[in-house]
C-alpha cells in the first residue's frame, strides 16, 4: 500500500492546519570593558594563565568584602538609558545563593527586585518590518570563574573571570502594548546584533561572542496561534556566534513543532547547542535548583541615582545607530540599505560622516565605502580602525574623478593603492602616470589600431553583432593602459564603425 496516498491514520484537516507561533525570550550577558573587576582591583582581561588575575575579594576568601566599581555602574546606566530604560532611583545588590565550584563565595552578587534599569526596548528590522522588542530589565552582577575539564575524573578551576562586571539584559514576554516580542530565529539574531551595535557605540563592552564577552541564552516555546498561554519553554546554551544563535533557535523551533505535531510534549529543560552536529541536545542536568534565596547584600550599601546624574549621562551618550542611520538618509540623501551598512560599526559610520561632510557627492562616498572599502577590509582582514585610509583620501579621490583627472576604472586601482600605502590619490596618479587621456588624437590612433587589428570582429559588428562594442572599448582601453576617457572612446568608435 502506498502510504503517500493512503495514510495509516487519516488526520482530520483541522488538526493538520494548526499553526504554531514561536515566543522567544532572550537573556543576554555582556561583560563590561572596565579596567578593573566589578568589586576588586584585579584587571579585566581575556585569556592568560589561570589564576593570575585574582585577589582575596574575587576568590571569595574569608573576610574579604566587595567594593563597587563606579565606572561599571556608569557603563551599565549608559546602556540602560540607550535602551530607553528608566533608571531605578534607588537600587540595591542582592545575593543569589547557589553552589557551584566556579562561584567562589557560593553566592553571586547580583540584582533582584530592583534592577538598575527597567522597561526599555531594542529596535529591529527584519524583512522590511521594524519592531520594538521590549526589554524588561537591565541589571548588574559579577561573572563566575571557569571550569576546565581535564583528563580523568577531575576539573580544574580558574578564577580569572570571577568578578568581571557582567550586565544582564532580559526581554519582556509578553511585551507591553506598543512593543513586540521576538518570534523567529531571524529576529533573535537581529535583536542580538542590534544590541551589540548599541553597546559597541557606547564603548561599554567589546561584545565578542567567541570570547564570551557577549553570551546569549534564548528560551524558546511555541503555542498554537491565537492562544494566550505560553507553551513549555526550553533554554539553549552554548551559542557562541550569531550564526549559532540563528541555527540553534531555528533548530529548537522546528524540534518543538515536530514534537507537538507528533502528539508529544515539550519538556522544560536546558538544551545545549552542538555546533558541529547542528542540533540541540538535552543537558544531563542533575537537578534544577531554582531556590536562590535572594536577599539584600549586607556588604554593599544602596545606590541612589539623582535625576541630574541620569540626565548628564543621557546627554553624554553618543548618537546611537538608528538615529545615525536616519540622519544619514535625511542629511546625505543616501539609500536606506547603504545607511544600514554604514552604521553597522561606529568606525565605518564616522569614516562616512567625516567624508560625506566635505564632498558634494555623498552618494559616491557611500558607494565607495560600502563597496570597495569594505571589499578591501574583508579581503585583507584589516580592522576598520587600523586602516591607513582616511576621509581625506576619499575626498581627494572623488575630487580628481569629478574634475576628470582619472576615470572610474582607474579610480579603483587608485583606491586600492591608497588603502595599501596610505598615499593620497593625486600622488598615486602622479607617480604612476594614471592621468586620464582626453586627447582625441591619441585615442583616435588607438581606435584605428584596434580596428586594423581586428578585421573579423569589425565585420561581425557591421553584420549586426552590436554587443561587440564592449570588446572594442576594452581593446582601446588596453591600448591606452586604461587611461582613455571612456566617453571619448565610445564617441570615436561609433563614428569609425559607422
Amino acid at each position, binding site marked *: 500500500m502506498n502510504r503517500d496516498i493512503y495514510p495509516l491514520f487519516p488526520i482530520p484537516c483541522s488538526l493538520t492546519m494548526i499553526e504554531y507561533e514561536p515566543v522567544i525570550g532572550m537573556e543576554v550577558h555582556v561583560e563590561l570593558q572596565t579596567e578593573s573587576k566589578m568589586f576588586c582591583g584585579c584587571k579585566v582581561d581575556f585569556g592568560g594563565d589561570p589564576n593570575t588575575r585574582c585577589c*582575596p575579594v574575587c*576568590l*571569595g*576568601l*574569608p*573576610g*574579604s*568584602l*566587595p*567594593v*563597587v566599581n563606579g565606572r561599571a555602574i556608569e557603563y551599565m546606566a549608559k546602556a540602560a538609558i540607550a535602551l530607553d530604560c528608566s533608571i531605578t532611583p534607588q537600587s540595591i545588590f542582592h*545575593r543569589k*545563593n547557589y*553552589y*557551584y*565550584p566556579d562561584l*567562589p*563565595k*557560593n*553566592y553571586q552578587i547580583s540584582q533582584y527586585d530592583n534592577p538598575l534599569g527597567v522597561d526599555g526596548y531594542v529596535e529591529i528590522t527584519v524583512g522590511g518590518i521594524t519592531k520594538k522588542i521590549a526589554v524588561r530589565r537591565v541589571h548588574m552582577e559579577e561573572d563566575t570563574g571557569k571550569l576546565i575539564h581535564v583528563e580523568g*575524573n577531575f576539573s580544574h*578551576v580558574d578564577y580569572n573571570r570571577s568578578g568581571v562586571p557582567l550586565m544582564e539584559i532580559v526581554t519582556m514576554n509578553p511585551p507591553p502594548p506598543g512593543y513586540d516580542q521576538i518570534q523567529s530565529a531571524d529576529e533573535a539574531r537581529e535583536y542580538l546584533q542590534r544590541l551589540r551595535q548599541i553597546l559597541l557605540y557606547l564603548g561599554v563592552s567589546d561584545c565578542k561572542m567567541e570570547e564570551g564577552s557577549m553570551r546569549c541564552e534564548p528560551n524558546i516555546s511555541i503555542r498554537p496561534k491565537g492562544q494566550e498561554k505560553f507553551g513549555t519553554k526550553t533554554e539553549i546554551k552554548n551559542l557562541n556566534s550569531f550564526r549559532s544563535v540563528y541555527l540553534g533557535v531555528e533548530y529548537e523551533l522546528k524540534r518543538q513543532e515536530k514534537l507537538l505535531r507528533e502528539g508529544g510534549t515539550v519538556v522544560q529543560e536546558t538544551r545545549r547547542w552542538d555546533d558541529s552536529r547542528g542540533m540541540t541536545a538535552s543537558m544531563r542536568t*542533575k537537578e534544577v535548583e531554582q*531556590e536562590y*534565596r*535572594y*536577599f539584600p547584600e*549586607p*556588604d*554593599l*550599601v544602596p545606590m541612589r541615582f539623582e535625576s541630574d546624574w541620569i540626565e548628564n549621562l543621557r546627554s553624554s551618550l553618543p548618537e546611537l545607530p538608528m538615529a545615525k542611520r536616519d540622519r544619514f538618509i535625511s542629511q546625505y540623501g543616501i539609500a536606506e540599505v547603504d545607511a544600514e551598512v554604514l552604521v553597522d560599526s561606529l568606525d565605518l559610520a564616522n569614516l562616512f560622516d567625516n567624508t560625506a561632510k566635505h564632498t558634494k557627492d555623498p552618494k559616491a562616498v557611500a558607494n565607495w565605502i560600502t563597496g570597495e572599502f569594505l571589499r578591501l577590509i574583508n579581503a585583507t582582514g584589516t580592522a576598520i580602525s587600523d586602516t591607513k585610509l582616511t576621509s581625506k583620501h576619499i575626498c581627494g579621490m572623488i575630487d580628481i574623478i569629478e574634475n576628470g583627472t582619472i576615470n572610474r576604472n582607474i579610480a579603483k586601482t587608485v583606491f586600492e593603492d591608497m588603502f595599501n600605502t596610505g598615499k593620497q590619490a593625486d600622488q598615486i596618479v602622479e607617480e604612476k602616470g594614471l592621468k586620464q587621456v582626453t586627447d582625441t588624437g591619441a585615442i583616435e590612433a588607438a581606435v584605428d589600431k584596434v580596428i586594423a587589428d581586428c578585421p573579423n570582429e569589425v565585420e561581425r559588428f557591421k553584420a549586426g553583432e552590436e554587443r561587440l562594442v564592449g570588446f572594442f572599448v576594452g581593446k582601446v582601453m588596453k591600448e591606452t593602459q586604461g587611461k582613455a576617457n571612456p566617453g571619448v572612446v565610445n564617441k570615436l568608435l561609433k563614428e569609425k564603425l559607422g
Partner: protein
Amino acid sequence: MADRLFELTTHELHDLLKSKQVSAVEVAQNFIERIDAVDGKVRSFVTTTPELALEQAKAIDEAIAKGEKLGALAGIPGAIKDNMNTRGILTTCSSKILYNYKPVYDATVVQKLGEAGALTVGKTNLDEFAMGSSCENSGFFPTHNPWNLDKVPGGSSGGSAAAVAADECAFSLGSDTGGSIRQPASFCGVVGLKPTYGRVSRYGLIAFASSLDQIGPITKDVTDSALVFNAIAGKDPCDTTSLDIETPDFTKALRDDVKGLKIGVPKEFYGQGTDPDVEKAVKDVINMLAGLGAEYKEISMSSVNYGLPVYYIIAPAECSSNLARFDGVRYGLRSKGSTDTIAMYEKTREEGFGAEVKQRIMIGTYALSAGYYDAYYLKAQKVRTMLRMDFEKAFEEFDVIITPTSPSVAFGIGALADDPYAMKLADVCTIPANLAGIPAISIPCGFKNGLPIGLQIIAKGLDEETLFRVAYTIEQHTQWHKKKPNL
C-alpha cells in the same frame, strides 16, 4: 614589679615603656611566660605567637632607642580573636573546616594594630564562627572562666575576654554580632566595647552576620578601651559599610563627670529571667550615678522583647550565605574520596562544621527560602526597623540607656548544653544594640559568688564619647575593675 608586668593595663605599660623603665622585649617575655603558666588551665588561645611578639618587640625597642615617638599601643601585647585574618598565621574561627587555614592577607584591624606598634601574642578561641555565648561551641576545646575554671567565659569572644582577665595579654580584639564582646567581658570582669556599626572596618573579619558584626576592644579598664578603639576605628576603603567620618581622640572623653546626664532604664531589660543580684548590682550603680548628678527614669521599649527572634532570623540568614564559601574547594578542610562536587560539599561541611553552626545555617536557609522569606526574613527586618525607631525615640530624651549586660553571671560549663534557647537568652540584653547598629559598652559592676557582674551602657549611634565618659566615671568611683582572679 617587673615580674608581674602582665597585671598592668595598656596605659600603665605605655608609661613604663615611654620612661624606659622596661623594654618591649621584657614586656613581651613577661606575657609569654604568663601564657605558659596559666593557659593550660584557661585555654584562651587557639594559636600563640611568641616568636612574632618578640620580633615585634625588638623592633619597638629599636624605635625607642632611636628616640622615635611611641604610639599608645607600641610594645603592648594584644591578642586577636581567631576570626580575624592574620597573614601567614593560622586563622581558624575555631572551626575544623579552617583547621589549617593560613590567610594571605591581614584584616584591616590587624594592619592597624601593627601600625600602632602592638605586639601579637596569639589568636584566641571562640564559639565556632562566633556562634554561641559560652565558647563551648569551639570546634577544638572550650575556654574556661579565669574566675572559676568550671564556668564558661561567655562567648563568642570567650578566648579574648578570658585572655585579658587572666592577664595573658594587655588587651584583645573581639567581634560582636549579638553580644559576643560584651557578654564575655561581663562574665570575665573586663571592659568590652561594641562600637557603632561602621566605626571599625570589617575587612578581614570572617563574617558571621554582616549587617550586625562589629569589631571592638576588650580591655582591663575604660582608658585602655578608648586607646585601642582610637587605633582601630576609621574609614576603610575596603569596607563600604565603614563610615567616612572623623575619628575623634576618644581619650578626651574620659572625664569624671555625669552632671545632668539623662539615663533611661528600660524595664524590658530587667525583671523576668534576670538574676536579682545582677539587677541589684546594676541599679546600685545607677543610683551612684544619680548621686553624682545624673538623672534616671524607668521607661518602656516594647520592641526590645522581639530582639531575640529578630536576631535569630537575621543572623542565621546572613550566616547561611556567608558560610556557603566553606566548601573544600579553595581552602580549609576537604572531605576525602568524593567523586562528585555535591557529595564533596556535603561531606566536607558535615565533617567541618559543628552542631550549632549547622543549626544556624539550616535556620537561615529555611528563613530565606521562597515562600518563607516574607514571613520570617522580611518580617524580622521590619521589626528591626521598629526597634531602631524605639531607640531613636529613647535617645531624644536620654543620653544613655543602662542595663545589665547579661541576665546572669557566668554559668557552668555544660550547664545549658541541652537547652539551646536558654543559652540564647544570655544575649537578650546585648542583641538590641546590634540590631540598631548603635554602640554599647560592658563594664564590671560587682560580683556574685566570686563571678563578675557586667553593666551595659548603650548610646545613640556614633556617640561612643558619652559611653566612655559614663563608663569612666563609674570606674573612678568603683574598684571592681581592679580585682584579679586567682590563677
